[in-house]
């Protein structure tokens, strides 16, 4: 009897958490498919009288979201690719070899991981403006790769630590160098880890807003978060369009998260701390 009561309480608790977590997303989606006339009503009209994609059409034609989306995609993919590559190499050396500066370097990575992007965006801006690289996608790609490599390395270390050394020792004895051993033997065994590092870097780059707003100011260079940022200050943006923009900004990360959640969570609890 008591056990049953606890079970019911638990189900209610889990139900509440589920509703609270999902409702905001469902609501913004409903807003995005409402006709413009049904967005601003009070009391609120819960369901649209008919579902329409006019907000999305507006977004991708007049508001040029196809371009912003492409920019974001390029930035996130390229920086995540480089970050993954660099951090696997660094993580590998930092797990397999003992040398003097090792602990220090690891602490540096942990420290860098705690640095928020906005805090160093000004000096980054002055540096890149001297190189005439502000307002280019290259500049934010380089910056995101820096952040990504730092926490990617910490994640890579967490995965590599669990892999017994004997696996690549045979390859090393056969005359492979470290680099070959890593890419021919270790990485094929570590694909879930590689995927989670990549996803993690992708999501962080996709979401970054403050550096991007400072660096990218012409329309053709903007990423999705920058476009949303400029929406807020623009008069006359309807909330159904805004809602559609938010959905477009969130969708790729939701997709990545649902594909890689298990591994990301694993990496997170094993030592990657940036959330």
């Amino acid at each position: 009897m008591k056990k049953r009561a606890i079970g019911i309480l638990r189900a209610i608790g889990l139900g509440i958490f589920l509703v609270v977590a999902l409702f905001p997303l469902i609501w913004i989606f409903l807003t995005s498919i409402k006709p413009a006339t049904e967005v601003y009503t009070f009391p609120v009209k819960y369901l649209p009288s008919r579902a329409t994609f006019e907000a999305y059409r507006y977004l991708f034609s007049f508001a040029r979201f196809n371009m912003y989306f492409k920019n974001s995609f390029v930035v996130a993919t390229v920086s995540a690719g480089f970050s993954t590559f660099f951090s696997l190499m660094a993580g590998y050396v930092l797990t397999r070899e003992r040398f003097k500066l090792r602990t220090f370097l690891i602490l540096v990575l942990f420290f860098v991981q705690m640095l928020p992007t906005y805090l160093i965006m000004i000096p980054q801006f002055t540096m890149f403006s001297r190189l005439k690289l502000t307002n280019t996608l290259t500049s934010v790609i380089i910056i995101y790769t820096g952040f990504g490599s730092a926490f990617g390395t910490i994640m890579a270390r967490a995965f590599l630590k669990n892999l017994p050394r004997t696996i690549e020792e045979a390859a090393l004895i056969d005359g492979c160098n470290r680099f070959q051993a890593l890419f021919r033997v270790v990485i094929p065994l570590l694909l879930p880890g590689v995927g989670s590092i990549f996803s993690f870097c992708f999501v962080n780059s996709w979401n970054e807003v403050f550096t991007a707003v400072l660096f990218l100011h012409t329309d053709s260079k903007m990423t999705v978060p920058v476009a949303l940022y400029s929406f807020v200050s623009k008069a006359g943006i309807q909330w159904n369009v805004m809602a559609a923009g938010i959905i477009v900004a969130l969708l790729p990360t939701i997709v990545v998260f649902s594909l890689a959640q298990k591994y990301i969570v694993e990496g997170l609890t094993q030592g990657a701390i940036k959330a």
Partner: protein
Amino acid sequence: MLVPTFALVFFVNLYPLVRGGVISFQRLTVFNLNNPRFVGWNNYRTILNDPAFPRLLWNTFVWIACSVAFQFLFGLILALLLAKPFFGRGLYMGLVFYPWALSGFAIGLLWSWLLNGQFGIVNDVLIRLGLLKTPIGFLSDERFAMFSVILVNVWYGIPFFAIMLLAAIQSIPSELYEAAQIDGAGFFRKLFSVTLPYIRPTIYSTVLLRIIWVMNFPDIIYGMTRGGPAGATNILSVQMINIVYYRNNFGLASALGMIITAILTIFAVIYLTLLERGEFEL
């Protein structure tokens, strides 16, 4: 093989941090990017003598303390609810944990629509339930703005705590619970004598990390209020970004940035020392 990562980390992260220190002593705006002038401690004086500065500190403290406390509380409850397997748990976790990966800025925008003072669903529901007579300006009313942004931050941060605490709870050997069971311990007794003491290292490290992270998390506030109304939700990080974006004063913003970095470094050193000493492991 270490070179690419550490060259980048140096060029993109560490050197700019030092450079920021130099800029904080300069008069540097967008308009004189190439010929800055050294002005001593002027920028720091301007920041510290600003009559709004004490309120900025207080807001930052409230923001951190309330956010982390409630994120922890609800994260712990969720982790405890998830501790025992049930049918569909994997799917459930995916659905409940998803906010964790989303853009804080977009989440702020999203919630500013839900909490809208005229057409917001939250007002609508509260009025239908008879809890309110007229809609509240959650974001436009100074009395409610801080409460609102913290509410959203708590919503956003629950999954992170739940993930970390759940992983720790699942590593507790079941013999401990069996022993407690034999001793006749009830739910709360088990919670306070077995679960919490066992996962204490995880709690410490997660809370400390979260304090650092929430202090440096202007995204949600920036999506919702940008520090307003009348500075009601202005915290240190938001103020720094406002100085960059609206006043284009890089020197002044860098001085504030160095103050934030100093606070961050104190927390980071505490964290890294505990980590080194093995108080908790990663």
